[in-house]
């Protein structure tokens, strides 16, 4: 499967190169890589990350029109080891136009905010226009800017442009770009935009691509893709009306009240790869802090009207998450985290991560038993690690951030709120995070491999099911192979080793193998690079008197008391995995078998003075990839309690539907 996958990737790269006419944009094949950036000795001593970019942005928000006028100065340090003359830039906001690749894909297959066949709504129009582009040493290059479409050749897509300098930038040298641009924010769509007086300003400035695997990596914005960028520093000034309350992914350096009724807030952030901010006059600010090993972490929670009952829930889960991430995976190095609670109707801006700023989601009547605010907050904070610091390529290997983050979400939520009810906790219904991820996985278990580029999934559902649910389920199942503690240690090692870099899936796999001391390619080849279906079952389990032909021994029990018991287990799917089988007998004895699962089926036979009571594969339900838990066991005695329970519910529903209809008569 890995070969086929690599072949597919190589073929896709060739096609894209031809279509785009931009050979610079060859896509990176999966596999082991050398370190992708060259750090100088001085830098690695003094900074958390190798700082490739330094952005200085001065932006002014028109809160009525929801537009931003800005200037940007970007200093790019050429650490690619090669002279660079052509530079690509992202213009993400241009995705929100009817002919963009994003909208084309949304129309075809849907995305998280809109289903297939969704109509284009003009209120969701968004744009970013570069009015002026200059580079030191090259002068005004505005006329040389050229939209490119490295992924699909859709000329209607203006989410990436490139520009060639007058002369190359030598390795180790820097180049400074000066841009003037303006944004039109859309009404909230896909994580960004406005709703009434609320502005969520994300992916809003021209952002340079990443030199990665010996090529520029600067993908168009797709329905299912997120982001990828280099680390650096951000000095951002935001000018807004004085009544606006602002939150941002940086430390507030200064606030200046201007004479025209505006104020300018200056922020600084370093060792991050993005900067976002939000503004609304309706926010209520809740401040708290968490004492971490690296010093206090300030928590700024910006609550929207009506949602204040959830503020403490955000803070509680954030503190718990910070504590456990620090204990289990590694230190949180920043001194702040901002939580943005979008207003009602603006939930499309919720559930999103930016460096040191996350957006969550709740509503005015969120019941305590529904742990959605906690889950979203935990998940988005987890991205500070898986995306924020371990800055994987979200376009090409989304499972490395969303998937690993979904796994750690399960572990953290289970630890904080209890394993079997960490998602829903009502007296009449419960749902654990583990189960929630498994439900997600089961909704599309075999359409796409984890390793597929994010925009190449069959549809939005498959992307979500596989990238989030299957990765989490795959890692939970891996605990069965190497142990929970070993996997935790492996993820800790992966984080510490690759934080502030751009690792790949192979880096993750190699780290887990190294920490566990096991060759796990047999597993990862199926679970990550394959689409094999996992389903084991107890096909048959019964006992028979050994001398069944001797009628004198038949009833009530054979005179010699000996039964022959058969248990047949079967692998229904293609996924091979070693499983444990526990057989229980009515004299209290048990037999435990370990089947390697290589063949299609295996029969076990026991001659004992006891009849079978039950046979069960994976009694602890640790193999969560198994599609069907219900055929994993066979109890000799039938128990209809669950059936009765379902019948009660369905009968009740049927009766009440009848009553509602008959009210009309």
């Amino acid at each position, binding site marked *: 499967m890995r070969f086929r996958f690599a072949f597919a990737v190589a073929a896709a790269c060739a096609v894209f190169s031809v279509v785009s006419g931009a050979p610079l944009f060859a896509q990176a094949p999966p596999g082991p890589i050398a370190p992708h950036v060259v750090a100088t000795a001085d830098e690695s001593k003094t900074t958390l990350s190798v700082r490739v970019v330094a952005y200085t942005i001065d932006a002014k928000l028109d809160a009525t029109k929801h537009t931003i006028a800005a200037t940007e100065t970007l200093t790019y340090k050429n650490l690619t080891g090669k002279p660079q003359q052509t530079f690509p830039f992202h213009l993400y906001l241009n995705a929100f136009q009817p002919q963009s690749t994003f909208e084309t894909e949304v129309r075809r297959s849907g995305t998280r905010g809109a289903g297939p066949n969704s109509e284009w709504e003009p209120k969701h129009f968004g744009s970013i226009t570069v009015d002026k582009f200059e580079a030191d040493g090259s002068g005004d290059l505005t006329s040389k800017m050229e939209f490119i479409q490295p992924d699909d050749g859709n000329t209607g897509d203006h989410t990436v442009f490139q520009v060639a300098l007058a002369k190359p930038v030598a390795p180790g040298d820097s180049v400074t770009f000066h841009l003037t641009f303006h944004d039109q924010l859309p009404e909230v769509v896909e994580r960004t935009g406005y709703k*009434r*007086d609320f502005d969520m300003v994300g992916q809003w400035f021209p952002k340079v691509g990443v030199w990665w695997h010996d090529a520029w990596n600067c993908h168009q914005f797709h329905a299912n893709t997120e982001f990828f960028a280099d680390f650096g520093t951000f000095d951002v000034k935001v000018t807004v009306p004085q009544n606006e309350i602002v939150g941002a992914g940086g430390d507030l350096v200064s606030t200046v009240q201007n004479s025209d009724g505006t104020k300018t807030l200056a922020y600084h952030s370093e060792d991050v790869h993005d900067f976002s901010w939000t503004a609304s006059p*309706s926010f209520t600010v809740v401040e708290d802090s968490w004492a971490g090993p690296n010093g206090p972490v300030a928590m700024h929670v910006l609550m929207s*009207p*009506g949602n204040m009952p959830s503020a403490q829930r955000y803070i509680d889960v954030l503190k718990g998450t910070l504590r456990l991430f620090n204990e289990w995976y590694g230190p949180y190095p920043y001194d702040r985290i901002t939580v943005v609670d979008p207003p*009602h*109707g603006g939930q499309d801006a919720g559930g999103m991560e930016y460096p040191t700023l996350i957006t969550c989601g709740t*509503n*005015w009547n969120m019941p305590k038993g529904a742990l959605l605010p906690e889950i979203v907050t935990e998940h988005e904070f987890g991205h500070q690690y898986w995306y924020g610091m371990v800055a994987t390529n979200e376009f090409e290997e989304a499972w490395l951030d969303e998937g690993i983050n979904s796994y750690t979400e399960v572990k953290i939520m289970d630890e904080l709120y209890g394993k*079997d009810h960490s998602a829903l906790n*009502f*007296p*009449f*219904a*419960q*749902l*654990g995070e583990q*189960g*929630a991820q*498994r*439900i997600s996985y*089961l909704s599309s278990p075999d359409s796409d491999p984890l390793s597929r580029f994010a925009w190449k999934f069959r549809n939005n559902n498959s992307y979500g099911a596989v990238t989030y649910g299957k990765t989490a389920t795959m890692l939970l199942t891996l605990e069965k192979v190497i142990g929970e503690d070993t996997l935790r240690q492996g993820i800790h090692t992966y984080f510490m080793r690759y934080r502030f870099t751009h690792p790949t899936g192979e880096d993750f796999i190699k780290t887990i193998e190294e920490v566990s001391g096991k060759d796990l390619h047999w597993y990862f080849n199926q679970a990550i690079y394959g689409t094999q279906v996992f389903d084991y079952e107890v096909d048959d389990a019964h006992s028979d008197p050994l001398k069944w032909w001797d009628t004198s021994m038949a009833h009530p029990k054979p005179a010699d008391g000996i039964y022959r018991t058969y248990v047949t287990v079967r692998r229904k799917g293609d996924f091979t995995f070693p499983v444990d089988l526990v057989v229980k007998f009515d004299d209290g004895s048990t037999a435990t078998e370990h089947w390697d699962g290589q063949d299609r089926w295996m029969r076990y036979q026991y001659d004992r003075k006891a009849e079978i009571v*039950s046979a069960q594969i994976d*009694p602890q*339900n640790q193999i969560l990839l198994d599609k*069907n*838990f*219900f*055929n*994993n*066991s*066979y*109890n*000799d005695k*039938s*128990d*209809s*309690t*669950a*059936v*009765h*329970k*379902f*019948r*009660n519910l*369905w*009968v*009740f*529903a*049927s*009766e*009440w*539907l*009848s*009553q509602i*209809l*008959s*009210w*009309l*008569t």
Partner: protein
Amino acid sequence: MARSEDGTFFGGAGLVWKWQRLLWWIFAINVIFAFFATQGMVDRLTPAISHSAESQAFVHGFDVSQMVSLMGQPDSPLEFQAPTVTHFSVVFMILMLFFTGGIVAAYVRDERPTATTFFEACGHHFWRFLRLLLYMLIVFLPIGGLVAFASHMYDKIDDKSISPFPAVQFFVASAVVILLLMVIVRIWFDMAQVIAVAEDEKRMHKALRLAFGLFRRNFFSLLWLYLRVSIIAVVIVGLCLRLWMLGLKPESTVAAFLLSQFMLLIWIATRLWQRASEAIWYRQNAPVVSPEPVWTPPPVIAPIAMGEPEPYIPPTT
């Protein structure tokens, strides 16, 4: 007046109790239909989970993930029986339309409903009540329009308002108004059914007109009569639901079944209570219908002979 209303209210309950066989039959038919509607699900579910250890996920709690997982299996052992349940519910509705004539007749006449009298009344009024149902659907059309308008307004308020609460308040207010309108229509048509039975009125538009006038003149009296019983029903069912969700042990399937059926029984009983109260109210308050003037021939007067006039005889002094 209050005493009279109380008499109607409690008298209705007494009538339901008195002719309780109606209640039990309706309840039994509803339960039997529900069992038929869900039998397919039980047939598929039993072999899939009754021998599986995993079924315990539903016994000592209710694991939503396992339910979803079960629903996603290829042979769909837990497939929602929506079409079957809907079909049985529609059939039940038609049956209730048929039975309503017999039920109302029993309450209006206050006579023991034997099979003969009951089904005779059912058949006698079925087509009339079917026409009434069609009329009611027509009356509900503008209410449907109002629902659409309220929904549109809700979206608009929710979209414009910075706080979520104005939209919530609008939703609650509009829901109350719409429910009230539906109840008013229901009472009007209930009274039309009572009039149709009591007066053996064949013309449903006339029954509706009479019922409308009657209801208009006694609006609050009839509305309160209906709402009082509704409130009792909602409170009892709400308390039972709460007990089911919070009070019963997850594994108490028998208790849960009995409780759920008790809720259904209460619901049916209170609906019959409303009908019985309306019937009594009508008996007590029905306008005295003046009989159609009967034509009688005028008295025969013997003709006076047109002969010579009587001679004038002057008075004597």
